[in-house]
């Protein structure tokens, strides 16, 4: 079976409450047999997971050989608890080095390596950002929705 290489980034700071949503998502996916890389022959895709405080220039190198990339990060605004939207490289970049946006990483990958993987942003709504570890109960519920979305999406690959 021709397996597709999938890279899932969990982005955020677990020391800042719900900013840890992205990293927590990939931790749970790591333990999930559906995405477990030890069973590559049973799946149409093999998943790798990377934790990031924020994306940076070397992530253009990290994504270049993957078929699909998902950027999972907490959202500070909006009514939707969890959503998966397609991401595209962008010429018009306005970013700080505190983090590069997924669009900027995709654009840099395209410029340096001549290709970009299919990419999605998994946005998970968070509510508390204090200096502490652990998710709020609302964020925990949203995380479960996000996990459901990712699992169903990977099933379609």
């Amino acid at each position, binding site marked *: 079976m021709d397996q597709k290489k999938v890279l899932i980034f969990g982005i955020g700071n677990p020391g800042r409450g719900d900013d840890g949503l992205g990293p927590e998502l990939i931790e749970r996916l790591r333990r999930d047999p559906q995405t477990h890389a030890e069973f590559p022959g049973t799946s149409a895709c093999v998943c790798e997971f990377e934790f990031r405080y924020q994306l940076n220039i070397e992530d253009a190198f990290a994504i270049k050989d993957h078929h699909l990339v998902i950027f999972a990060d907490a959202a500070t605004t909006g009514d939707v608890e969890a959503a998966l939207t397609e991401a595209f490289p962008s010429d018009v*970049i306005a970013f700080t080095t505190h983090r590069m946006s997924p669009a900027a990483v995709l654009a840099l990958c395209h410029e340096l390596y001549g290709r970009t993987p299919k990419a999605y942003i998994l946005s998970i709504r968070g509510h508390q950002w204090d*200096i502490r570890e652990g998710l709020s109960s609302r964020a925990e519920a949203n995380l479960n929705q996000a996990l459901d979305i990712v699992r169903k999406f990977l099933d379609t690959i």
Partner: protein
Amino acid sequence: MGRKITIEPITRIEGHGKVTVQLDDDGRVVQSRFHIVEFRGFERFVQGHPYWEAPVLVERLCGICPVSHHLAAAKAVDIIAGVGPEGLTPTAEKMRRLMHYGQMFQSHALHFFHLASPDLLFGADADPAIRNVIGVALMHKDLAVQGVLMRKFGQEIILATAGKKIHGTGAIPGGINKNLSPEERDSFLRGPDPLNADKMIAWAQTAVAFFKDFHKKNTGLIDGFAAFPSNHLSLVRKDGALDFYHGALRAVDADGKRILDDVDYRDYLDHIGEEVRSWSYMKFPYLRALGKAEGWYRVGPLARLNTCDFIPTPLAQKEFETYRAYTKGKPNNMSLHSHWARLIELLHSGEVIKQLLLDPDLQGTDLVRKGRKAREGVGLVEAPRGTLFHHYRVNADDQITMANLIVSTTSNNEPMNRAVSWVAKNVLDRKAEITEGMLNRVEIAIRAYDPCLSCATHALGRMPLEVALYDARGKLISRKER
């Protein structure tokens, strides 16, 4: 009617900050300030935790330079665990050094290729849509590729020494929790091009040469922009060598006269004070010997190459001699020469990484020492951005009761304000129109210090981005938020 011009956020530096320039009715600059808008809270957060957790907890401070905090905290808790600053096993110290120099390498590479090079390559007046790393990739692809891979190489060194690229657990009280396997060593020494130590050193040399060439063609800009005299502080090795991991405190004034020399950093409170000012959450450290008004100082690459006597690796030492000769052996007080100094340090870091990789002590198995416990510990390292202070006290139950951190960017608070004032007076003063290029010059001045505002304010995560314009009476005229 006077105008207050606000630039917020400052692009391409970690965290967020606000610059405010106050003009009078004639358009003359009467005041400029660099504000930090987030609140410090991390020192309180660590209280109550057992001291051995400090090296990992403090990494939550910042996703840009977690290794620096990890090692500074580790050096402090070494003392609490009863192991003095020079008491580690050879394997433990050299593993920590490899971790630290890997961090320096990737951090300096990131700063130059991602932050500074767009300004140098395209100029302050270039279209913002191009004046970024994507623009560098479009117009100077080889430079961008090198920047990405130099970052990756440094990150892999950190992974091999700390156990993880982020939230590494390598340094523990009294030592280290792993050595470097022969396979790991060989992957860095003999990895396929370009991911090996020799290629990294060669690229660092190219970067230094690039800057020197740029300097020759733009001497007026590089020498004159935001140049002002200051004191300088860093750690130096006992013999005066540049050393990022350990040493004694030395401070020199703008002419090179020593204000502090061979000071045990555990006594830092006797020599360094911190002033609070009402308009910023970030403190203003100063040398007590000179007082609050005159005692402010710079830290970081410019300061380090002013305080040290030599660099103990041959290629970087050769570049250092050229660099020092430019100011005839006197301290360099030109802000944009920070980039030159940073690239010499990048080269030095590459050379040290190779030296350490060739040292068989890294495969040693004696990793930890223990001793008689103490109730207090201070740890300093030279982080990429400058001297980093970590200080903890513990109670009888080994819980942290006090934490004091002075991060590099805090020490550079006053220098950054001076740089902003220079630009305000020389670029913004009495101009009929404020252009994007003028505003970018303010940011260029700040970016030379490579500030990490997340560290300085112990903030990480989302912050509202605000642009505010006030009239001479402080009334809000216009405001934008992202």
